[in-house]
Every structure is written in structure tokens, then in C-alpha cells.
């Protein structure tokens, strides 16, 4: 009984520590997921998966200093593959993008939304990671789990599309 209590107490302490760290990281991960999957609803799903995956492997993380990069990597890959998982489950849901609720189709940001939402998950990921979060393309490829050449291709195609839709000269 004593051993059980000690085990529960130790497990509880470990869990509280992990939960506190992950709660601090949650806003950043939600932002990344939201940009890539395009829907707040799906982004919450993604980050839930990230939390579960992180907790599952919490004790296996070798270097606590690399925890941010580790969580980012899980989040990016989970976001990129999130749609595929849903399709594989034959789950058909209406994608609710609550950022668009009430927005006029003539507003400039709606054009950006339309152009950005037309990109693939990989393209959105590399654009956000490179232009907003400042990762190099090699770092982007590691976060996304693809080859550097693939990341460059995704970025080039994404920028070409965005410039075309936004009528921006290259």
C-alpha cells in the first residue's frame, strides 16, 4: 500500500510538472497549428494530439533544453498530417473557420485568407515557419520531416501562388 501511494505521488508530481510546462507552450503551439490547419477547431484537435504525444514520450526526451524544438516539431508534423488522419477515419466534418465569421468578402484580409487557405498544409507550414517564425529552410525541413529540397519547392510554389492571387509582381 505504501509503495502504491509513493508511486501515485511520484507520478502525480511528474504529471503536474509536465502539465505546467505544456500549458505554457500551448498558446505557441495553437498559433502554429492554427496557421497550418486553417481552423481553430482543428488546431485544438492538433494540439490535443501534440499534448498526448508529448506526455507519452515525456520521459524519453533526452535534452530538456531542446523541449521547445521537440514540441514544435511534433506540432508541425501533426498539423501537416492532421487532414490525412481525418480522411483515413472517414470523418467528414464541415470545416469551421471561425475567423471568417462576419468578415466581408471584400476586406483585404479575406483575400489573404483565401489565397493562404488554397495552399497545401506543407506549403502553409513552410511559409509560416520561414517568414513568421524565422526558421531557415533547412530547419523547416527538419521540423516538417521532409528533405530540404522539398521544403524549398513547397515555399517556391506557395509564394508563386500567393503573389499571383495578391497581384504582386515577383
Amino acid at each position, binding site marked *: 500500500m505504501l*509503495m*502504491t501511494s509513493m*508511486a*501515485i505521488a*511520484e*507520478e*502525480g508530481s*511528474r*504529471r503536474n510538472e509536465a*502539465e505546467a510546462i*505544456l*500549458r505554457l507552450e*500551448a*498558446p505557441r503551439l*495553437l498559433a*502554429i*497549428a*492554427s*496557421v497550418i490547419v486553417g481552423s*481553430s*477547431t*482543428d*488546431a*485544438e*484537435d492538433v*494540439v*490535443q494530439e501534440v*499534448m*498526448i504525444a508529448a*506526455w*507519452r*514520450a*515525456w*520521459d*524519453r*526526451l*533526452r535534452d530538456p533544453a*531542446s523541449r521547445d524544438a*521537440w514540441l514544435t*516539431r*511534433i506540432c508541425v*508534423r501533426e498539423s501537416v498530417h492532421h487532414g490525412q488522419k481525418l480522411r483515413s477515419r*472517414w*470523418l467528414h*466534418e464541415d470545416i469551421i473557420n471561425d*475567423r471568417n465569421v462576419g468578415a466581408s468578402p471584400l476586406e483585404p484580409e479575406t483575400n*489573404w485568407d483565401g489565397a*493562404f487557405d488554397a495552399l497545401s498544409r506543407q506549403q502553409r507550414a513552410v*511559409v509560416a515557419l520561414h*517568414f*513568421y517564425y524565422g526558421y531557415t529552410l*533547412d530547419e523547416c*525541413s527538419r521540423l516538417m*520531416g521532409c528533405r*530540404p*529540397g522539398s521544403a524549398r519547392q513547397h515555399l517556391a510554389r506557395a509564394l508563386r501562388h500567393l*503573389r499571383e492571387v*495578391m497581384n*504582386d*509582381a515577383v
Partner: protein
Amino acid sequence: MMPSESFEQRLRAYLDQRTLNAGGPGAIDRVMATAFDGRARHPSRRLFAAIAVAVAVALVVATPITVLLLRQSPRGTLAPATGVSPSAHATPTPSAPVTSTGPPHVNLVPVGVAFWDTQRGLLVATPACDSSAGVCPGGLIERTGNGGKTWLVVDRVSASLTAVASAGSDVAWVSEAGGSSCGAGAGSCLASTLLLTADGGTHWTVVSSLTPVASVSPVSRTTAWAVAGLPGSLGLGTIPVRSSDGGRTWQPRAALCSPGIGVTPWAVSFASAVDGWLMCTGVAATDMQSKELWSTHDDGATWQLESQTCLSSANGQAVRDVGSLSCVGDYPTLSLLSDGHGWMYAERGGLSATSDGGQKWTQIGANVVTNDVNAVISASLVGDMNGFVLITHSESDPVCPTLGCGPELLSTQDGGRTWTIVDSWVA
């Protein structure tokens, strides 16, 4: 201002706005509650759960006879295993036929199996307890002499047991948990205490070491290989180690994992005194992990690279894959034979097999193992075509509502094409 700069600035401003809007009110609380407490399920999760239940009900209604037949195993009587001589405190554990109404082994959670041949093997288990505790104190070692149909308790210990590995015809080494911080996967647990038998499980010797080890792979009563590292952080500075005094001391061996590409020793599997394999892995992310497999055929004096996947160099350049090792799957565990036949199982990576010493790998057991539905937690290959796997079911497995989600022991006699449920336990 150049047009391209203006475009990039506008793009950054748009991304800034898009990330600012991420997560509505209470989003973080919802995420944390679902991930850690399982409450406040997201609407889409509820929908998926409803669909899963509906599918499960449909399956049960449509195919009860098929499922019942599938679950019935060719079990014999409840006779104890041949040659079993339990210790004074051991008690026989009778097993009932595996049916949908009376699964055996209530309050017992198997965590590992190891067989010497198609009939004789060992199983380590922990008593069931409050799952919030993660690891339950106390462990049992059971032995079978009839291919897993019936089991007899041969030893009980106060510590939790995490893994068992066999060698030769009667040798086995059992690992005790180093503490509750060793994580959910048995492969990650580092053990400072080992239990050894050299007579098929009749007598056991307790050995303690100053070097915590994981992935213990014995080759004899006195010799074994393992991976050593820091408790709770297996991987950081891990190194293959070898003991020649029955696990009391461990000597480091050269770490072979390619330097500079982020992989470190994770698991070893030795099939004989000279033939062994070392798996090096990188940081796991979701269901992908870089892997590198080396083999030796001279007791570790020289090593050959068999396969590698998903690696990138320090400057970000992708490293060309070797062999057909899959990038998918985390924390791989090996079970190989001297003739080059082997199995590998991984979290979210299923079960795969090789027949050429680890260069080519093919997925097997797809009919019994599905990622995120059930998972292999232990495997023991005893011949080119014969082997055993211990699998667990998640709550999303359609068989759970009626047949239970407890672990099952499966065996194959045709290299993994078909499987027989040999035994099962209550969740």
C-alpha cells in the same frame, strides 16, 4: 520600397494577425483538460467516438459468430507446464479457454514475453492497480510449457518488472523497473536490478548493478548486451554495454551510431555469442523517428551498417536511406535470430520482419496490429516462421465493448501471415 519587400511585409502582417486569432476563449483550458483529464471532449472527438461506437455495435451485431470463433483458441486442459517446479510462495494460475464470456488472468497485466522455442517460454506481468499510478508495484514471472496455453507462476517480486529476454534453451534475464519515472514503454525503463535463471525459470538469482541498463539481451547465463544511460532519460549519452559476470558490471563498447546526425544507441538484440544488432534512433516526433541499424558477427569487434532511414546531417542535408527500414514508428525493439530472420516492433509503427539480417524490412501482422487501435508491446521470434507477440488494445478497438480490451498473446507459424490467439487477459 521594393515590391518583394512589401509583399513579405504584408505576408508577415497577415501571419501575425492569423496567429493572434489562434484559439478562441478557453481554447487552452479545453486542450489541457482533454489531453490530461479526458474531460471536455472536443465536439469532433465526440463525433468520432460516436461513429466508433456505432461501428463497434454494427460489427458485433453483424458478426458475432465470426468474432467468437476468432477468439476461441485451441487450448487444452489446465495442466501445469511440463517440468514446472514452482517455488514455495508460487501459486498456479489456472487459465480458462479464451471466449467472449470468461477471459482468464483477472488483475494481471502482462508486460513482456520471451520464448526459447515454440512451447517453452516466460511471461512477466504486473498486478493491475489504479491506472493513474502508471506503474504498479509488484511483479510476477510465469512459465509455460505448451506454447502459452497455460501458465504457472514461478516467482513473485516486490518490484515492478518491465521486460524479459531469453537465450539458449534455458537462460532468461528479467529486468526490474528502475522507478516509476521510467515511462509507459517497457523499452525505455532502465533497470539496476535483474533476475536471472539458467534452468528454464525454476531458480532465480537477483543481481544488482551500479549501471542502469535497458534493452537487456542475454546470450548466456553470464554474458549479455544492453544499452546503458541515465535513469529517466534513456538516449542522452547512451552507449552499448556488455556484461560477462551475470549483470553485476557492464563494460562500455564503442558507440557505433553515426556521429553528427542525431542518433544514439536505443536497443540491442543478440541472437548468439557473436551475432547481434544495435538500433540507433533520433528524437521521435509523432509517429516518425530516424533509425539506424548495425550488425555484428564477431561479438561486437566490428559492426556493419544494415539500414538507415530518415536521417539528416548536422547542416540539414538529408542522408541517403540505406535498406528499407521504415521512418514510421517510434522506439523500435528488435528480436533477431542468427540466420538473419528478425522482427521489429515500434510504437505506432506496427510489426515488421526481415530475412536478410536487417537490410530489407516488410510489414507483417497488419491483420492483427493497427496503429492507434492496438499495439505490440513484446515480441519473441523463435524460428524463421514461428513467433509470439503480446498486443494491447486501445479503447477505440471495435472489439473492446464486447470482448474486452485486455492484452492478448498471439502466435504465428507461417512468418506472420496468420495468427492464433493463444491467451488473453482482462484489461
